[in-house]
């Protein structure tokens, strides 16, 4: 599948061009990169079409000189690493696997399988990203669309609580604002762009309308909009309370109702603030309400490369999107109970496997303190705060740069990766398969653990 041409340049360098490669830095998962690869140097020297984040992603992933495996800080072989990891997992009474947003679906599938085999828990970075949006979805559903549909049709584009210019730089230019589409022949000229946020960001200049809202008041404003869309009364104190005037709200409501095809993109300004899943629920409900008048969709602007794939894989294998516990031989779901922040903060997990993420730097202090007390297995392409405290640390190849596989864009569209150059490190899928096979052997005959 990989279309690649290998040519020798003037310096007789071994150069390869990879066309239509995919960048997995953010949830945009742009698949139109043209990579120039220096095969001698094992690095990408040029990434055409990549944004500033994408360029950093491609350029910074070089082959570091570091051991494949460290056990308790000492260099070890891959087999020894797999052996120790398998032992740690099998011995644990409440093991958890977390991360997976920067892994392929193929690796994610194995990670879930391991937790199914040992009756552990599986959670992904979704739980601290758009997990609350997933919970909101379970409550109210969602009207949504693929990004191409938005490119082709959306004449009203609203961003709420997000800053795509810095977090998803090509969201505007490739998908939702500037591109021309089937019924949007003039690109941005045919669309109205609204931005709602608590501060001005580099995204603000792009908006036709900027709505500055008091911090922590998103739910109140969304709730007021829902009422106005339905023709219901709202409190006269709305401006005092939220910083948004009645005139601005009325104008927004009229624009939304009269749009031909509207979209509400929302970011972690909703999911990570007080109200969490109810904030997401409010915006999803607003979009659904608007379908009484016109066509309207909503879409969380999801973060890391394949976090959406992780949601999909965990859902199809277990029925639930994240925070799944297999202690009893079948999947159970309860955010707050089986999610990683909670099981660390409450001191419950007695072992953890962290794949392609860094909770030791992102999690609340109390959770990190517990992580330092239990055996951690880490798989990552770079050293992180988490790999620093790991009992077993695997250095793995970078997905999309060194390995193929499947990733899902933020709108659930699956894309195959085109690797640029080989890595001396194994892929996380290979390491996980090794651990799975060893765990299976260790549990052979342990009927109590194998069957529910």
């Amino acid at each position, binding site marked *: 599948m990989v279309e690649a041409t290998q040519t020798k340049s003037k310096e007789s360098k071994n150069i390869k061009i990879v066309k239509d490669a995919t960048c997995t830095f953010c949830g945009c998962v742009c698949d139109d990169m043209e990579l120039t690869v220096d095969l001698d140097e094992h690095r990408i020297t040029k990434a055409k079409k990549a944004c500033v984040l994408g360029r950093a992603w491609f350029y910074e992933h070089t082959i570091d000189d570091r051991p494949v495996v460290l056990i308790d800080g000492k260099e070890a072989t891959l087999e020894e690493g797999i052996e120790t990891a398998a032992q740690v997992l099998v011995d644990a009474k409440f093991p958890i696997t977390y991360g997976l947003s920067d892994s392929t679906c193929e690796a994610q599938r194995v990670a879930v399988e391991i937790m199914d085999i040992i009756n552990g828990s599986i959670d992904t970075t979704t739980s601290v990203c758009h997990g609350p949006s997933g919970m909101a979805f379970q409550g109210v559903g969602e009207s*949504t669309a693929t990004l191409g549909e938005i490119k082709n049709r959306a004449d009203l584009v609203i961003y709420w609580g997000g800053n795509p210019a810095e977090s998803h730089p090509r969201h505007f230019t490739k998908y939702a604002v500037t591109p021309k589409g089937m019924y949007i022949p003039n690109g941005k000229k045919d669309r109205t762009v609204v931005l709602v946020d608590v501060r001005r960001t580099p995204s603000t200049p792009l908006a036709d309308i900027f709505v500055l809202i008091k911090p922590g008041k998103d739910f109140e404003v969304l709730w007021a909009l829902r009422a106005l869309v339905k023709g219901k009364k709202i409190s006269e104190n709305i401006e005092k309370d939220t910083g948004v005037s009645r005139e601005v709200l009325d104008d927004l409501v009229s624009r939304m109702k009269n749009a031909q095809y509207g979209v509400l993109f929302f970011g972690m300004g909703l999911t990570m603030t007080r109200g969490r899943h109810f904030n997401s629920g409010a915006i999803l409900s607003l979009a659904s309400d608007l379908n009484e008048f016109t066509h309207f969709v909503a879409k969380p602007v999801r973060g890391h490369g394949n976090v959406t794939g992780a949601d999909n894989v965990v859902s*199809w294998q277990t029925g639930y999107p994240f925070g799944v516990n297999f202690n009893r031989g079948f999947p159970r779901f309860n955010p707050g109970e089986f999610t990683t922040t909670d099981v660390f903060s409450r001191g419950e997990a007695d072992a953890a496997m962290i794949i392609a993420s860094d909770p030791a730097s992102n999690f609340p202090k109390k959770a990190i303190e517990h992580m330092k007390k239990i055996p951690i297995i880490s798989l990552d392409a770079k050293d992180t705060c988490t790999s620093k405290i790991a009992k077993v640390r695997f250095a793995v190849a970078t997905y999309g740069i060194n390995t193929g596989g499947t990733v899902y864009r933020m709108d659930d569209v699956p894309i195959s990766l085109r690797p640029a150059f080989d890595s001396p490190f194994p892929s996380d899928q290979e390491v996980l398969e090794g651990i799975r096979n060893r765990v299976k052997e260790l549990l052979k005959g342990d009927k109590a653990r194998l069957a529910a």
Partner: protein
Amino acid sequence: MSSELKIVNGRVYDPKNNIDGKVQDVYVRDGKIVESVSSSATKIDAHGMVVMPGAVDIHCHIAGPKVNLARKLQPEDHRLDVHPKTAVTRSGTGGVVPSTFATGYRYATMGYTTAMEAAVPPITARHVLEELDDTPVIDKGFYVLLGNNAFLYKLLKEGRKKEFQEAVAWWIDSVHGYALKLVNPGSDELWKGRKNANITDVNEKIDHYDITPMHVIESFIEAADELGLPHPPHIHCNNLGHSGNISTTLDTMKAAEGRRVHMAHIQFHSFGGEINKNAVSGVKPIIDFINANENITTDVGQVMFGKATAMTADAPLAWMLRNVKFNKWVNADTECESGCGIIPFSYQESVYTHALQWAMGLELFLMSKDPWRVLLSTDHPNGGSFMSYPKLIKLLMDSAYRKEAIEHVNQKAINKTVLRELTREYTLSEIAIITRAGPARALGLENKGHLGRGADADITIYTEEEDKEQMFNAPRYVIKDGVLVIKDHEFATDHKGKILHCKPGYNADIADEIEPFFEDYYSVKFSNYAVSEDYLHHHEVIPTHPKDS
């Protein structure tokens, strides 16, 4: 090393080979049915048991983005129906939209060894194939949603029939699909482009394209015929669920003009009465037409009382249902290809429409003159879960049981049907036809649905029981590809089934026509769209028989 199996002393029902309950032995070697085996073959004594080919589900929704959304949507449903792992099988969750593993295992525990996912937007084919790879035991394939495809509409508008057929073939081949699927043709453009409007007539012009749904239907029937696909276009007609929709359904069937066509979940398209008024059964003219026209196959899409999930590419339909109860609703637009709607739903005996639909489904079964062409389905999970098939079989085989069931449902609805007058009871052989031989024939799967030499050794063995629901609920043995997967009602081993797909031939130049359209209107690169064969794992290409060869 070859693996051999012989099943002895069982009463065999193999309608394709005209075997109707005869006690005879069945031999298996290396996953296929053979005429004899060596003396060292593993023996299964099926004395007092019924031996049938593995069942084939011709229309269900078990994998892909809409299924996964419906799964994620209903944690409350999974929590009450867990699927624990065993020493050989993976765990999962059940409910009306089970996890992939639970789906595969549960199909197998009911004697189903093949199931076809009935609606896949091609851009999501990778996702479907990944899920199907995690759906154990059964063989499976999927139908590609092309009936609202923007590029194909453009070709139809331009009157380029040849290119249209090439493009259709390209699409099936590129995503490894099995058949063509049309859902409410023409509706997507109105739904997405005209503020949630819907097509109401097969002869209505589709916005922007200067073509009609009828034009679309005819073109696909012709294309499938020319390409010689093993299964004809699988059509979900316009106006699903609307009173008086039989005229649309009849128009659609007539469009085939004798060529093969498959009408999906016909029950939902058999409403009499006036448009937008209270519906009545319109089964009679529909089933009469089907009985009289051998080119038509259909699956019933029976409604079963209890939990269901409306899950459809027919977005306007889901919107209509949403506005009944205002519960959680999912809509998902797929660029240039499809719409989608999902609503958790429950069919209740006391509700007029629900009881009417239940009765209409049974009317269709009981008034069908050719079981080979009127096949069993619940349009899982739209009319109910595939787990309710055994109950449906009992309703068909046991008229006393059916009579009692009729008394428990809305009588006003029953009175709008002739169900009370229908005393027919399906025989075991007829059940074998509507669940095995018939769907296999309609799908063009020559190695499925029978136990003749060369067939896939997909076999189910039931303990014969008076209560047919109990009997079909739990076969004693299930053999898949010659492997004894279920032994004495329990999983003896895990097993991976195959992907069934087609590779119709076409002129590769058509790709050059499609590519510019992609660059303009899709959000993925053309070169990243076609699905690599890596996603197929175990698979089998089902041959096509193109007309011009």
